[in-house]
């Protein structure tokens, strides 16, 4: 509908919905592109509501990670002095990625509940609400990274040349998160308790991922166990270029690519399977 038609114009646009036919990703992509304006409005709405159009709103979002950083720095900086000098950078560089993942998945589920009435009133690509939450989350990551760089300058942590790799890292983190969010939003439309369960599980997941502590404190024989958690790679790929000043190892990069694309594929498959029955639960 993006092409403004006038009365009696060509009725070339034909939309056919057949029972039992799942969404096709090609048509969903085309539909999303046709609704680029809506995507912009949704992201804009999300950011203005979050930041309440003020600097104060922005500081408020940053306050939580910064407080955590302060607490963890006070508690752990001396303990991990050898393994992780500049602990504040060590922590924040991974926490930014973690926070994006945690916030996006939880917010996407809240957004579907929030936008349920909307989805019953207009025909829009169903995944657009999840996508918009992921995009506004990425904007948030960008702002958080600026704050992190400022902190690094203040405390004298080196800003490495490897920062050029960061957009690639964020793309992979974004894909992984979007795929996970797609599956979780679909499940949360059907089951009201999924959101609570995910929200309750997030803190545990935070401690299971080497964000606060270096992975090297885990004894060698248990490390494979920790590495079953895909988030290990997802935070590592962001931390490497910021904190260590290295490009991710082929292992980290390869695994990240596989799990990001895997998450998008599996997330989409779950979403498309459940989408035709969303309306009954909204």
């Amino acid at each position, binding site marked *: *509908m993006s092409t403004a038609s006038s009365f009696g114009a060509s009725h070339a*646009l034909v939309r056919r919905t*057949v*029972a039992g036919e799942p969404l096709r990703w090609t048509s969903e992509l085309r539909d999303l592109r046709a609704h680029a304006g809506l995507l912009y409005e949704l992201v804009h*709405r999300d950011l203005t509501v979050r930041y309440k159009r003020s600097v104060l709103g922005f500081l408020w979002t940053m306050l939580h990670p910064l407080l955590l950083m302060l607490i963890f720095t006070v508690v752990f900086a001396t303990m991990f002095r050898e393994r992780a000098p500049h602990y504040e950078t060590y922590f924040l560089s991974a926490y930014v990625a973690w926070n994006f993942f945690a916030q996006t998945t939880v917010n996407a589920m809240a957004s579907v509940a929030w936008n349920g009435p909307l989805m019953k009133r207009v*025909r829009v690509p169903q995944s657009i609400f999840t996508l918009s939450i992921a995009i506004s989350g990425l904007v948030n990551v960008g702002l958080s990274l600026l704050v992190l760089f400022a902190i690094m300058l203040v405390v004298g942590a080196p800003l490495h040349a490897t920062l050029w790799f960061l957009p690639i890292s964020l793309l992979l983190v974004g894909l992984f998160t979007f795929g996970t969010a797609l599956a979780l939003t679909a499940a949360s439309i059907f089951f009201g308790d999924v959101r609570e369960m995910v929200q309750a599980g997030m803190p545990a997941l935070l401690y299971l991922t080497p964000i606060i502590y270096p992975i090297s404190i885990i004894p060698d024989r248990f490390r494979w166990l920790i590495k079953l958690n895909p988030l290990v790679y997802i935070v590592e790929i962001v931390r490497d270029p910021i904190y260590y000043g290295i490009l991710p190892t082929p292992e980290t990069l390869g695994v990240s690519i596989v799990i990001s694309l895997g998450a998008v594929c599996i997330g989409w498959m779950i979403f498309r399977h459940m989408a035709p029955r969303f309306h009954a639960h909204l």
Partner: protein
Amino acid sequence: MNAADNAIELENVSVRYRAAKIHSFKAALVSGFAAHRKSEFRYGLRDVTLAIPHGEAVGIIGPNGAGKSTLLRVAAGIIPPSLGTALSRGTVAPVMELGTGFEAELSGRENIFFNGALLGCSRAYMRARADDIIAFSGIAASIDAPLRTYSTGMVARLAFAVATAIEADTILLDEILAVGDASFRRQCQARIERFVTNGATVVVVSHELDVVASLCSRVIWVEEARVVADGPAADVIARYRARTASGL
């Protein structure tokens, strides 16, 4: 008549829901989906086949819970049919009951753009029509106030103004004439008439039979998820009136 002349085609469309819904993951884990799968269906629409040609003004009448909104939703592609096929040709602007996708925290003006985007229209396209929308909706004084401060009638005015300003090929109106006052209703009627003369397709769900009779040439009577009657407005409305009167 050529099939390509139809704005909307429903072919054996049913929309159905399971009577027993599973609302929690824990319940699904504990008791499984067996009860859900065995439960009977509730129908929102049941085996409905109809075609609405381009440029026709059609009224849909029927008691509450009959399936009128469901019919509009399927026609607009908002919900897929559980059985059968739904098809629309050309752009469709649905105006469903009470506030078609508005955001309470945004101002009326911002909502024009937000609502436009929901209907697939760009900012530039909406900007060119914003003055007309504000003038028609008659709420210029409060257009920059947050939408949560609006009355239901004001929201309906804005929704109607946006949906009719974007010049869609087909416009679907679900009980939105009921909320406005008399003068707004007259304005709406005039605009719908202009739409029809210009060759747009209009489908109106309304309980106001006189309004339906004056606007529409054809009326579809829906009850208990089925089409009871479909024909010339005067005939169907007369039958509906007789039925409702005898049922009292």
